[in-house]
């Protein structure tokens, strides 16, 4: 069995290659070849696919890519390779169930299946966003107050004590600790002291991450994200994060976010790259669970049609062949306070829940603006629950997702970014303001009528 020690060794001794060659001659070339060989096809009218053989083909292609490419270490310009037995050992040993959080707030996070009849775990928060320090606490409470939200992944702090945080500076430590302090405070105030976090978002380098490996900040029932860099790359900061949390005993979560239009190519190549990333991420970081985040090169949003197809095919491919615990991101172009966001959430969430991932979001405006709140994440949870309760299958899900996407896909270039959190919520009582609540109720009914789901 390989360990993080061996990963470090291979980062120093693996085959040397110029990064550009790895990008073009390995990743780009192989993704293209594999897509062609396996005849993988993206169809915008079949966002949720019913073709099991295509899911299996994507998986097989991804496994081949994982074996042939390996992971490129940016610092050493060397490739960290894994053989088939190591990757398979990673699959076999990957947790299928995991207890996250503590006490009555603990949840069993599980590897979701295709058309899984179980209730999906809901992870709430505006992940990836830079949230103003003064709103961070009430905004976090707004998520934790929602009973349907099981765990939290909120954004980070870009300003702490009125000071702008710069990467790799002491303020990064302060910001990450402040983030965790406020999350703990929010959990206590919301009466969810044991709720599980995916946190440490303010730690962009390894500095902040190192500073929160303590019960005071992160518990061992919590998790942090360790990204695979685009595409199939890592660096010493990422590996250091893994080393730290592995020894601390908290969960490592691989964040995989290949770019559609980037080195892996179009939606099909990205799907192959996703599988390789998950398999290699498990082998390298020993991650307990994973986040699936396809990025659209123009819109970013996971609610883009190509991205949802990726969530779908990757979710199914993994569920059928290598059942990992995977959270599927719900990143919208629109912001809270808009009508558009409800359509994006509904389409994205239905896709996730039916095809093997737990929804994580809502990262409104793709995290660009702090225009987010607990209320739209409540809607995400309600859609997830309604999807399972109605026993929606893939065919039915596709009909709804295509229909919902039709309502917003042409607006993604110029979305309604909604309004900032304090305009949506009474920040003292941490309740939605009447106008926002009224829009939520209106849109909930509208989308229930539009989809036939009892949301």
């Amino acid at each position, binding site marked *: 069995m390989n360990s993080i020690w061996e990963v470090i060794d291979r980062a120093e001794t693996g085959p040397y290659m110029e990064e550009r060659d790895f*990008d*073009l001659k390995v990743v*780009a*070339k192989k993704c*293209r070849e594999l897509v062609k060989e396996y005849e993988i096809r993206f169809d915008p009218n079949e966002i949720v696919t019913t073709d099991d053989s295509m899911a299996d083909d994507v998986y097989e292609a991804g496994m081949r890519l994982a074996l042939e490419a390996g992971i490129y270490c*940016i610092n050493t310009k060397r490739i960290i390779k894994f053989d088939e037995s190591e990757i398979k050992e990673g699959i076999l040993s990957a947790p299928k169930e995991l207890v996250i959080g503590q006490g009555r707030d603990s949840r069993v996070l599980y590897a979701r299946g295709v058309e899984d009849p179980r209730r999906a775990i809901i992870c709430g928060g505006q992940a*990836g*966003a*830079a949230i103003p320090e003064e709103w961070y606490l009430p905004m976090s409470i707004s998520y934790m107050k929602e009973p349907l939200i099981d765990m939290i992944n909120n954004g*980070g702090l*870009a300003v702490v004590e009125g000071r*702008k*945080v*710069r*990467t*790799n500076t002491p303020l*990064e430590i302060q*910001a990450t600790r402040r983030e965790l302090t406020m999350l703990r405070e929010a959990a206590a105030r919301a009466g969810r002291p044991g709720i599980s976090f995916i946190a440490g978002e*303010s730690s*962009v*380098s390894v500095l902040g991450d190192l500073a929160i490996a303590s019960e005071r900040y992160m518990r061992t029932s919590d998790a942090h994200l360790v990204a695979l*860099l*685009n595409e199939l790359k890592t*660096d010493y900061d990422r590996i250091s994060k893994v080393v730290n949390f592995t020894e601390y005993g908290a969960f490592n979560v691989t964040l995989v976010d290949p*770019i*559609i*239009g*980037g*080195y*892996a*190519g*179009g939606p099909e*190549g990205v799907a192959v790259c996703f599988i390789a990333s998950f398999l290699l991420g498990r082998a390298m970081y020993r991650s307990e669970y994973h986040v699936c985040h396809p990025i659209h*090169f*123009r819109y*970013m949003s996971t609610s883009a049609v*190509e991205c949802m197809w990726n969530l779908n095919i990757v979710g199914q491919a993994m569920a059928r062949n290598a059942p990992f615990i995977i959270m599927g991101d719900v990143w919208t172009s629109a912001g809270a306070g808009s009508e558009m966001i409800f359509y994006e959430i509904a389409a994205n969430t239905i896709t996730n829940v039916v095809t093997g991932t737990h929804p994580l979001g809502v990262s409104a405006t*793709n*995290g*660009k*603006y702090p225009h987010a709140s607990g209320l739209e994440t409540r809607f995400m949870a309600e859609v997830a629950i309604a999807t399972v309760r109605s026993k929606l299958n893939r065919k039915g899900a596709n009909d709804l997702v295509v229909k919902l996407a039709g309502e917003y896909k042409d607006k993604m270039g110029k979305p309604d970014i909604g309004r900032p959190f304090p305009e949506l919520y009474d920040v003292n009582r941490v309740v939605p303001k009447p106008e926002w609540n009224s829009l939520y109720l209106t849109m909930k009914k509208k989308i229930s009528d539009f989809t036939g789901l009892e949301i």
Partner: protein
Amino acid sequence: MKVKDRVAIITGAGQGIGKAIAFALAREGARVAVTDISGKEVDTAEEIKAFGGEALPLRLDVTNYLGAQKAAKKVHEIFGRIDILVNNAGVYPFKSFEEMEEADWDRVIEINLKGTFNCTKAVLPYMKEQRYGKIINISSIAGTVVGFPNLSHYCASKAGIVGFTRGIALEVAKYGICVNAVAPGPIETPGTLAEVILLNHEEILRNLAESVISGDEEKAKDFARKALEAGIDPLRAINEGLMRGMSRVGDDFSKLKIYLPEVMMAAEAMKAALSILEPAALQKGAGALKKSKVVIGTITGDIHDIGKNIVAMLLRANGFEVYDLGRDVPIDDLIRKAEEVGADIIAASTLLSTSMPYMEDLISLLKERGLRDKYIVMVGGGPVTREWAASIGADGYGDDGEEAVKVAKELLQRVKGK
């Protein structure tokens, strides 16, 4: 001499092959009727007469059967017989099949193939009566030996002439009439030369564009050399060849028809061709190639570079000279490079909110060093917003690669008058 005193009719004798044949026959003592639709038959006849030959100019549209009959009759009336007919009149307008209209096709077939029929039919009674005749049909290797792109109608007509010749030769041999076809390769004539040069230039430019689109470095270099050899202005080769290709690459990328690797390979192919064309362009006049320069990088603390790479590639595709310093670039390095290369724009990108303050630092440092007005500063990346860019005093912001290019062009126009 074999053709001495023979009477020959040559169609399309106003220039090119027809004129040369008329001269050759006249030199050998034949009496020649030089026909053409253009009026140049008069010049040909005068030139023949000038060296002592005997020539009769006749205006003839070979597509008109009655006209052909009249011409044959007139030649017979004047010279008393018709021994030789050279069916030479022909046209070869270059046109791709996709662009070819029915009228284009008809015109070529009418002149080249039907014209051969008309003139043959017109002289045949005289030759039959004489029980002597030589009919020479000018075909071509085009359509009979090889194909030529953009000449499908011409190829068809010339292949048709061969078929026609084979058929009629068997029919009229019994009258002592010999029908042959010749199939020359490309002959440099006033008509073909202009077309060939045009074709070559167009072909070379098209190939340059295609080499960029397909990201084929070797082909790009090859056609860059060919462009210079063919006498194409290097600036034209860059603008109408390479840039045209890159523009298509940019469009295709924005529509997700192609992806980043293809854009990168296209940029490499363009760079390879430019290494040949640029020095030549500079020789023809330094400054002619002056491009706007951009120094770009993912700013300090951030290693995410795909977004930046996309912007850099699209800027290159739009004619900018781009100095990409990579990822995690200290602001000092951005400024130093900008100073070194005389940049117009400094562009910084980040995916991290905690690297955004370094963009502010960049602007502050430029101000401190008295360089702020010297450069256009553009920022972008995941968490960067239009409002924030304006708040730190950046000149421009792009929500995506396409907008970044558009803004860069507008700023250059507005701020630097470029």
